[in-house]
């Protein structure tokens, strides 16, 4: 076997989580800037913005489901809370965008607490059922209270005005990417903090967690609130991107797509949220180009996207049950063992370093 030298020391990221995550985020921001400003067309740039806000929603759900073990079919509804909050603020007030987004996050997080409290008593299919009702019912309120939410017509959002001669769509995309990266750093640090350990402990063994002095119910509600807050920001960005917020924007299928995208990307990983976001945004695009090429018409087009998504989901679950990111990790650790470790090496040693 050829001997490949290990990467030099300076190549390794620092161990301190905050520094580590900030470096990764800054590098990612630079990459996104190049990608959106110089490489992609305006149309594709908008798609990158969509990937970014899907990644926010998926990342939040990944914390809730992957780390804390609670399933939610209701994240589309929580996105609606964020979207309507942001839109109402834009219609009735003149706050600045950051404040509006923060309030949208707060409103969704409060909704998350309200959902999370009964959720602490439910498990598995029962929790899925409860959150499913949320996904079906909550967006309908938009029609019910037409005077506030303006029903099917919806509320018009005001896109942020860019400085100088920057293209408004590009500007919004940057804001979305920046928001996604800030959320990723916050979530990554949260997972490395005591809250991350508490989330995982509760998921793994509630009795053992409570015997360690953890308030199990409170921990679950916190996870729900964090996750819902992310969904709220994603919803607010969705509202900005589409320019209008109406009850039709948040169908049940949105909640299911988010859950499926999170599982596809890899539950419990934040990088996986980006894979899931890419899948959610690009599969419909591919579907439409394939159906155009095959002459399927618009009806076939609508189904093809779902079919592709379903097929990929099945395939990924067969090949890498822990999602795309989980699959990459396995390949990575396999390559690491093969390339960098002497044959018949110390097994316990590789177990230790493999635990990163």
């Amino acid at each position, binding site marked *: 076997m050829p001997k490949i030298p290990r990467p030099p020391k300076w190549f390794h990221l620092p161990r301190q989580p905050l520094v580590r995550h900030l470096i990764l985020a800054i590098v990612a921001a630079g990459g996104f800037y190049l990608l959106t400003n110089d490489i992609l067309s305006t149309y594709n740039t908008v798609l990158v913005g969509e990937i970014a806000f899907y990644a926010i929603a998926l990342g939040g759900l990944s914390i809730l489901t992957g780390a804390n073990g609670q399933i939610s079919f209701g994240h589309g509804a929580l996105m609606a809370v964020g979207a309507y909050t942001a839109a109402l603020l834009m219609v009735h007030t003149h706050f600045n965008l950051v404040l509006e987004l923060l309030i949208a996050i707060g409103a969704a997080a409060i909704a998350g607490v309200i959902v999370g409290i009964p959720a602490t008593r439910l498990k598995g299919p029962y929790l899925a059922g409860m959150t499913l009702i949320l996904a079906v019912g909550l967006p309908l309120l938009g029609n019910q209270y037409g005077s506030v939410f303006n029903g099917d017509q919806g509320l018009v959002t005001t896109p942020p005005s860019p400085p100088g001669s920057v293209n408004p769509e590009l500007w919004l995309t940057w804001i979305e990417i920046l928001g996604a990266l800030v959320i990723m750093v916050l979530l990554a640090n949260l997972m490395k903090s*005591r809250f991350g350990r508490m989330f995982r402990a509760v998921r793994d063994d509630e009795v053992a967690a409570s015997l360690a002095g953890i308030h199990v119910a409170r921990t679950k509600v916190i996870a729900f609130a964090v996750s819902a807050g992310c969904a709220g920001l994603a919803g607010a960005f969705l509202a900005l991107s589409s320019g209008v917020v109406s009850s039709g924007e948040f169908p049940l299928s949105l909640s299911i797509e988010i859950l499926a995208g999170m599982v596809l990307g890899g539950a419990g990983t934040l990088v996986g949220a980006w894979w899931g976001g890419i899948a959610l945004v690009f599969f419909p695009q591919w579907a439409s180009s394939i159906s155009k090429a095959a002459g399927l018409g618009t009806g076939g087009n609508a189904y093809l996207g779902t079919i592709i998504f379903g097929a990929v989901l099945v395939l990924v679950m067969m090949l890498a049950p822990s999602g795309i990111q989980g699959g990459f990790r396995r390949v990575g650790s396999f390559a690491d063992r093969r390339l960098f470790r002497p044959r018949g090496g110390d097994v316990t040693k590789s177990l230790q370093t493999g635990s990163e």
Partner: protein
Amino acid sequence: MLEVEGVSVQYGAVRALEDVSLTAEVGAITTILGANGAGKTTLLRAMSGLVHPRRGTIRFDGRVLTGRSVEQVVRAGIAHVPEGRGVIEELTVEENLRLGSLILGSRSAQKAVIAEVLELFPPLRDARNRYASSLSGGERQMLAIARALASRPKALLLDEPSLGLAPIVTARLMAVLRELSRSASLTIILVEQNARSALSIAQSAVVLNLGRVVAADTASSLAADTNLRHHYLGF
């Protein structure tokens, strides 16, 4: 001092405990013995708040624990090591210990207690970055006890710590427990099937049968009672 007074626990129609009373002294090991289904585990679970008794009170240092939630009991200074280890497999050894030390609040206090318990169980120190799922049975038991100690408890409740361990590991564990009860003036309550080794380190003992206390005395006099030993303890 941990006092149990007239405690009854019922699971549906099944009476698990009936009017059980006992007192565990500070700095001593009290062992609870009995056959399968005698109610030993239920008694520990009642003490730590995992089940709520229908009748009776449990007091620790004069404060009533009955009716409190599990994590309030933990904060009152009682650490329960459940049967089947009770470690979080998805976390590393160190993360498990950090979890255990959570209630101490300050970071420096947490660091100090983790260093202390790792000193107590050297195999854990070498495995501190390994996931708990990769530990052997003995190491897991050590981790479960270490995690409990990381909350700096005043009382330690142990449910069959020798279960599935090699005799030599059990012996070492018992020695550590005896040392802990003496030096750290811990109140230890030890539930055991292995009556012989439990009686050898305990100061007092309670024998349960079908949910009732059938004998309570010093460990040495119980061990000397051949009749009782044959009847309830099987040696």
